[in-house]
């Protein structure tokens, strides 16, 4: 039993406990990690979407501002074309012209001073090869009126010959270009949009043209002033050529002999160039590798009711800027994930413990049981499988205990049988001799005396012969019982054979004490034994040997007691004799 218990697997800190803890903790960590990761990603996704929406809105707003600004420039041109001064310059007699020109120049100055995005305002004649009549240029920080021989002939430029074809109130928008006209002051070699409208005379004939040169860079600076500085601005013409690009080398590439097209850089914009689609969202790697950007491009028509002129306006923002906010979200998420992971580990340990403590209890119970055969307390009240296991185990223990009892009883019976006389229940010869030996050893140590009484039935053969063996047996049983009743409890009555009994009396103080016992026995045997109505008369003859006086060994004592007994028999029975 003990061996079996030691071979049981150890259920302790290493084993199921660790495995269970690891599995539960891993599950907990994984669950919180994945949740964190997905929520982080979802946050990024939402943010990108939101920024995309913002971008589209910003681009549209910017586009609307551009349309409005283009309309306002047109209105400024139309206003100048209608002021009486402009027509007067074109029609008045030469003598008066100088005054009208001065007045108009003052108006041009005013306009330029309130519109920092205007490079130049001019009145150009329809006659005399398109000579400039009144011209004010921006030159650095101040405004400069151009006069005399510095005035140039412009009839060969489209903004003049195209505008002269227009009716009153119509406006010509040039394509956006780099102005190379010599003497253009601040506007020289700068991205320019020209807005022109005819000055129409009384006969309906165009007499001249008002032209406003607009500083495109400045215009967009003004338009985008409240936009986030992270936004990068793109502007293209109808063909997709970049006019504004964060990389200045790519703007106006066609002026440099190389074309840089929006549809090459941002594929998603292609339909806007080819079929005039309204808008496009992009998410791509821009020219510099590894930098992902998102952006939106919007089709911006301009010019009154023409619908033919448009530009494509785009805003992009590097994704890293968009996701800057998610850094903290990421950090927070990471902290939460770590916190939950630790919690999961702690919980796993607790859960594993809770699961293992009944098991440990079971193990302890098994150990104790195997060592002491005692029932320990088991978690039998649990409703789960552990409870079932504990109950089964408890039952098993009880079974085992019951079996053990049975086995012990059986063994005791067998032992008794081997050492006692079946009939009388008294120790048999072998057992008695063992006990005598033990008593001798004990007496020898303590210095006590022992007395051995050899008791032999008289006339037992006659009883057997007269009344049968059963009667003999009954007599023997009665004799044994009377012997036991007569002697002290710690004195031993044994049956050596047939009708021979022996009595060992311990701690004998003198012969008299022994003689009293012997006489008591003889007296007890005087009463006949009742057997089925027959009175069986039984007497006894007793021989006594004492230790150490009559012998120091079992054999000596027995032989001497026997001899004393024979002496009694010869001398008349129903008496006792000491050996010496």
């Amino acid at each position: 039993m003990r061996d079996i218990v030691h071979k049981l697997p150890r259920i302790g800190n290493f084993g199921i406990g660790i495995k269970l803890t690891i599995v539960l903790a891993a599950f907990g960590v994984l669950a919180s990690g994945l949740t964190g990761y997905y929520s982080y990603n979802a946050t990024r996704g939402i943010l990108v979407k939101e920024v995309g929406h913002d971008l589209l809105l910003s681009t549209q707003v910017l586009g609307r501002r551009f349309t409005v600004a283009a309309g306002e420039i047109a209105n400024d041109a139309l206003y100048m074309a209608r002021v009486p001064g402009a027509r007067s310059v074109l029609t008045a007699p030469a003598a008066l012209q100088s005054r009208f020109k001065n007045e108009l120049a003052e108006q041009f100055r005013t306009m330029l001073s309130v519109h920092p995005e205007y490079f130049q305002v001019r009145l150009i004649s329809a006659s005399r090869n398109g000579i400039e009549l009144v011209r004010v240029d921006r030159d650095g920080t101040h405004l400069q009126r151009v006069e005399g021989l510095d005035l140039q002939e412009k009839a060969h430029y489209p903004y003049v010959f195209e505008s002269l074809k227009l009716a009153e109130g119509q406006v010509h928008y040039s394509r956006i270009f780099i102005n190379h006209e010599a003497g253009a002051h601040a506007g020289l070699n700068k991205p320019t949009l020209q807005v022109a409208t005819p000055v129409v005379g009384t006969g309906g004939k165009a007499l001249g043209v008002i032209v406003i040169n607009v500083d495109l860079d400045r215009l967009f600076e003004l338009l985008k002033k409240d936009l986030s500085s992270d936004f990068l601005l793109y502007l293209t013409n109808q063909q997709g050529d970049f006019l504004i690009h964060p990389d200045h080398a790519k703007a106006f590439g066609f002026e440099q002999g190389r074309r840089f097209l929006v549809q090459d850089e941002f594929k998603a914009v292609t339909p806007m160039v080819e079929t005039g689609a309204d808008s496009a969202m992009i998410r791509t790697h821009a020219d510099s590798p590894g930098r992902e950007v998102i952006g939106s491009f919007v089709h911006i028509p301009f010019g009154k009711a023409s619908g033919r002129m448009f530009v494509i306006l785009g805003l992009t923002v590097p994704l890293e800027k968009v996701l800057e906010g998610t850094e903290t979200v990421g950090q927070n998420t990471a902290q939460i994930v770590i916190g939950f992971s630790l919690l999961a580990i702690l919980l796993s340990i607790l859960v594993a413990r809770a699961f293992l403590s009944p098991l440990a209890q079971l193990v302890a119970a098994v150990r104790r049981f195997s060592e002491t055969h005692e029932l320990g307390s088991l978690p039998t009240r649990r409703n789960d499988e552990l409870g079932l296991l504990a109950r089964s185990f408890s039952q098993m223990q009880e079974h085992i205990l019951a079996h053990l009892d049975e086995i012990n009883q059986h063994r005791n019976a067998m032992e008794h049988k081997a050492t006692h006389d079946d009939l009388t229940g008294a120790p048999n010869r072998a057992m008695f001799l063992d006990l005598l030996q033990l008593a001798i050893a004990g007496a020898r140590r303590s210095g006590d005396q022992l007395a051995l009484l050899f008791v032999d039935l008289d006339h037992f053969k006659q009883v057997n012969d007269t009344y049968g063996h059963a009667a003999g047996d009954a007599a023997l049983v009665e004799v044994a019982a009377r012997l036991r009743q007569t002697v002290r409890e710690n004195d031993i009555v044994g049956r050596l054979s047939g009708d021979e009994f022996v009595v060992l009396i311990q701690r004998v103080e003198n012969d008299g004490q022994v003689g009293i016992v012997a006489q008591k026995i003889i007296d007890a045997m005087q009463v006949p034994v009742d057997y089925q109505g027959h009175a069986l008369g039984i007497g006894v003859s007793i021989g006594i040997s004492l230790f150490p006086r009559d012998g120091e060994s079992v054999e000596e004592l027995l032989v001497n007691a026997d001899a004393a007994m024979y002496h009694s028999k010869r001398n008349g029975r129903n008496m006792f004799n000491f050996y010496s």
Partner: protein
Amino acid sequence: MRLPGLLLQVMLLLVPGTALAVDTLRVLAWPGYADADLVKVFEQRYDARVEVTLVSTDDELWARLSRRNGEDFDVFAANTAELQRYIDGGISVPLSPANLPNTARQLPRFRDLRAIPGLVRNGAVYAIPYTYSEMGLIYDRKQVRTPPESITALWDPRYKGRVLAFQGSTHNFSIAAQALGLNNPFRITAADFRRVARHLVALRRNLLSFYTTPEEATELFRQNRAALMYANFGSQQLAQLRQAGADIGYVIPREGALAWLDCWSLTRGAKNRKLAEAWINYTLEPGVSGALTKRQGLSNTLEASHLLQDRARIIWLERVEDAVRRTTLWDRVVSGDVMERF
């Protein structure tokens, strides 16, 4: 066992490295000389990247090449007259005809490089002919009943506001000199310069507008119903207008038409001369040179052209007396400075 495996790994690591270091060929050319599809074939064949920059005037070409002494480009196309200032300035450098086997496909007159003025200097070959055209007058048959005979037609007040001219300095000074009857349009004397400039102002006053590219010329001509146009790009413009459905005629004026022969040349800044020469050789393949004729209407050096045969006088361009002076004056003319300014 281990060492070869390691070597293999190292080699695998090096392969993308070499793939990244693809050579870039920087070509400076004119519209139609390096079409995207033909460039792509070259890129694939030589595992190179080609960066094409287009110019439409000689002034522009000079501005690009002289800015950093030719460092920005590997190979360029210029006419024989313009080429001289690039050789003078050391921007154009000699090439090795031996590396250009396709020159064997050229017509004999283009193979004899010494017979063409300006290609060979001190025994070194600086350029290989590629395409050529004379610059005549294009007119609208509906508006101009009798074909113009003289270059002076550009100044004809009957066509005022319906004439188109090229926005480039050198040739305009030359044709103004022709119109004025000067002896040598390429050698305007100091005394004559003012007169020629003023004549250009007069030309400007007679114009509808100036154009820079063949495409722009076609658009202006068609949209504004121009009557007369100076064909700076020659047969290329003719082909484009006809493709657009214009009913036009073409004449060589009696003063003679200036003609250009554009050649490929290497710059001193050429990073990979072999690749640049491979480009030149590639353009002399029948498919590439042929596209020049088929698509652009320009003559190539492999096939005989009708243009130059049995025609009136052709005046091959020569280097001019002072290109910078012409450019400076021209900028003012085109910007609209009044006559009194010259």
